[in-house]
Structure formats: C-alpha cells, structure tokens
C-alpha cells in the first residue's frame, strides 16, 4: 500500500504528513490524541543520514512531548550497502536509532512499528523490531534474503530451501512466517483504524516475542532455551 493511502485511511485526508526524499514525518491526530509518525518510503535503503533523521524526531518527541505515542511506518530494502556508510559507522548510527526508540519506550511512550510495504534485515532491526510491538499489513513482505540469494550464500540447493520453507518458517520470506515466529505481533486486516487502536491499547513494554513464537509454533526453542539458562545450576 502507498504510504499516502495508508495514512489517509488512518488519519483522514488532512493528515499533514510530509515526504522529504524517502523520509516521512508528521504529527497526526488519532481519536483525540496526538501521535508522532516517522517512516520511510520508496523501499528506502537506510544509511547514516536516514537513521539520524529518524532518531532526531524520536529525541524531539521525548524532550518536547513526553508520553506521546510514536508510530513507525516501515518500507525499506535494508541498510545502505556503501563503503562510505561503513566508514562513517553505519552500525553506530543504527544502534543510535534503536537506542532512541528504546529510551522512548522506557520513558513511557508507546511505540508501534508497522511494516506497510517491505522490510529487510538491517533496515528493520532498529526500527520495528525494537518497538513495543511490530505489526504488518497482510500484503507486506518481510525477509532477510530471497531464497535464490540464500541458496548462493549457504551453498544449499534452492529446491531444498523452497521445500523446507513450506514447513519451517525460519527459512522463507513472508509476513506470515514472522507472525508465526512472534517477530510480528499481528496483521492489520479490515479497518485500519480499529487495528491501530488495538495496537496502541495492547502495547506493553515487555518483550513477548519468544513466547509468542513458541505459542504460535514458528519459533519453538527461543523461549525455552532462555528459560533453561535462567534455571541452569
């Protein structure tokens, strides 16, 4: 879904959100409450500049609007794959963005991520995956790598990976697999306003993803292994 269609459905035609380059930003009114909305579009690749732009808005929301909820709209092809970004410390900029979002949560801001188009690895890990909850539209795509590329890197036959992906969600792209593994809390189906209201009211600071993965059967070991470490003699 186009970001404009999405925010129009969520916040009406006068949402006031702006697109500057691949960066989305706005203050919107949702059911009488102001929200900070930050996002990216055009399958943006997230480099140092775009990570800092997002972090700036999160820091401003913390300092100027204590407690205001933050909605992250995610559409990214992943981290920017450039030597100069590595030289500039793209991992540090990404960590900074993640830590700003994490601090917002600790300071009482509810933070919801929504994958409305596509999400890939590095562009996703310090946004949606560090929010209170990450949700997605049913038509969104989430992945680390496509199966052909995965076959190349792992030197395993593509047919084998494709077959396994039918039964084991850890191998294959797809938003349903991320729901099964607990990485995505819920899909926004039907009325989007109802879905956002539910996401905001159900947001907790607790990381439930490993438990959800076990309950939903997509990631059976994570919660159990962490518990075994806690119990170990």
């Amino acid at each position, binding site marked *: 879904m186009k970001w404009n269609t999405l925010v129009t459905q969520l916040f009406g035609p006068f949402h006031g959100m702006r697109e500057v380059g691949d960066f989305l930003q706005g203050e919107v009114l949702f059911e009488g409450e102001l929200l900070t909305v930050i996002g990216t579009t055009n399958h943006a690749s997230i480099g140092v500049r775009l990570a800092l732009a997002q972090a700036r808005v999160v820091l401003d929301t913390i300092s100027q609007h204590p407690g205001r909820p933050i909605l992250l709209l995610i559409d990214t092809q992943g981290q920017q794959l450039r030597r100069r970004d*590595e030289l500039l410390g793209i991992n540090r900029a990404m*960590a900074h963005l993640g830590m700003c979002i994490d601090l917002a949560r600790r300071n009482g801001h509810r933070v919801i991520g929504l994958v409305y188009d596509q999400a890939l690895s590095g562009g996703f890990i310090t946004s949606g*995956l560090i929010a209170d909850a990450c949700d997605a539209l049913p038509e969104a795509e989430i992945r680390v790598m496509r199966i052909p590329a*995965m076959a190349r890197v792992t030197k395993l036959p593509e047919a084998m990976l494709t077959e396994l992906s039918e039964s084991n969600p850890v191998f294959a792209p797809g938003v349903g*697999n991320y729901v099964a593994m607990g990485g995505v809390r819920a899909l926004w189906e039907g009325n989007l306003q109802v879905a956002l209201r539910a996401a905001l009211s159900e947001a907790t600071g607790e990381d439930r993803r490993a438990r959800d993965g076990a309950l939903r059967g997509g990631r059976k070991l*994570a919660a159990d292994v962490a518990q075994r470490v806690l119990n170990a003699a």
Partner: protein
Amino acid sequence: MSLSYAECTARERLALLLDAGSFHEWLPPSERLTSPHLAQLGVPCAFDDGVAIGRATLAGRTVFVAAQEGAFMGGGVGEVHGAKLVGLLQRALRDRPTAVLLLAESGGVRLHEANAGLIAVSEVMRSVLDVRAAGIPVITLIGGANGCFGGMGIVARCTDYIVMSDSGRLAMSGPEVIEASFGVEEFDSRDRALVWRTTGGKHRWLTGDCDELVEDDVQAFREAAICALSAAKPVTSALLETEHALLSARLRDMPPPSDDLDDAMALWQRLGVADAQRIPDIDVAAMHALRVATEAQR
C-alpha cells in the same frame, strides 16, 4: 609471553581472559543443545550452537560472559545461539553480576535460519539495553578473525564499552556483501588495507567508535576488560543527544570523495590527526599518544 587473541578459540579466550578456572558454563556442550534448523538442512551442528555462556570471576569480581566461536558458521546468530545470549542477559538482570562481557565474533544473522536469527538479534539488543538500564555495564571485546558484523555490529554499539584490537573489525555489512551489490569499484573486498582502514580497530578508535584499543594479546584484552568493569554509561536523553550531535557532525564534516586522498585518511585528518598517512604503520602505543594529542587539540 604474548598470546594472540585472534588465534584463540572462544573457549581458549574464556580460559585465559577470566580468572583461572573460574568459568562455569551454562548449557555446556554435554547438553548437546544444537540447532534443529541446521540439522534439517544437513549442515553440521555444534553442541553449543557456536556460543559458550556462563559466569566467572574477573579480578575477583563476578561477571557473566558469552563468547562466540567464529570457526562455527562465522559466529552467526541462529535461534538457539541468540536465545542463549538472551537468557544470559535476562539472568544478569535477575542475579546482578558486576558486569556482562560479550566476546563478540560474528558475521551477524546466520543465514541458514535467517528469520529466526534476525528476530533473535533484536531480542539480544533489547536485553542488552535492559541490563544497561539496570546499571550493569555490558562490555564488548572484539578481536576475532571474523570481526563483528551485521546485527552483532549494532549490538556492540548498544553496549556500554567496546575494546578492540588493531586487527579487530567492527562494521555492519561485510566488504564482500557490498562488493557483490555495487561492484569492486565501490568496495574491493580483497584490498585488505582498505578493509582495515574502513572497519579496523585503529579507525574505530580514532573515531571513538570503540573505547579502548589494545594489542592482539589475550592479557591486553583482560586488562582492558578489568578497567571497563566500572564503565557503566546509563542511557539518558543527554547521552543520546551528545551521540546525535557527534554522528551528525561526522556526517556533515565527512570530506567529499577525492582522487588525492583516501576517504578514511581524509576523515582522520578532519578529526585532527596531522599525519593521517602514517596511521596504518604505527603501533598501539603510538596510537594512544596520538589520540591524546588530538583530544588536547580539540
């Protein structure tokens, strides 16, 4: 006698870096906790899934520690590997050791179980920040041959303190991945000097991306880790505003690409290093003197 940190296995590092005989492992290899996903692919497993975790003492203080084994899947984080790290951090939150040490050596997410690995790394990140918020420092040591990349490169920067050796590497995307995407002109992954100027310990130390630079020596890492035990840096708005200002200034001041001077050297010059061409050739002691000099200048 000097012993290369890079050449040690994860378990050798634990044995030599911590107080002798003090490491007590949780979920040791005898429990045979392996990745079911690798087994399904017919790929060999490890009985610790590539990471050893436990408690130990360091200079007599209780620490919790994890060591990633670069020789197994490049230290890649899968479901079990990640959950062991999360469990260790959750336990630190409960039992409150003096510090948590992360002997990081990882290419990031293990692609054989990519989706689970990606979520696991984000869970590690959140757990690290939980431990930090409790006032317990998390200290990262980077000096393995595989470096610290991908999601683990982000995790490292979420911790309180980073120690690197000159030969250590810290970044996000590996040079091979960048070369595969944008060609050899963008990043020649076989140009070792270029790779080190871009991701290596000296560069990270000059820019402040790591907090201490040591020789590739296990004892040097041990001493730096002991010094870091009291290095807790609570994450506050003020800390993040300072960080934001630093990263914004670096982005703004980064010199444009030039044919005359390598990008890394141009950046070091901008940071106040007078003789940037010399950097690749000087030793760790001279590097320390140099940073003291540039900081005094600022």
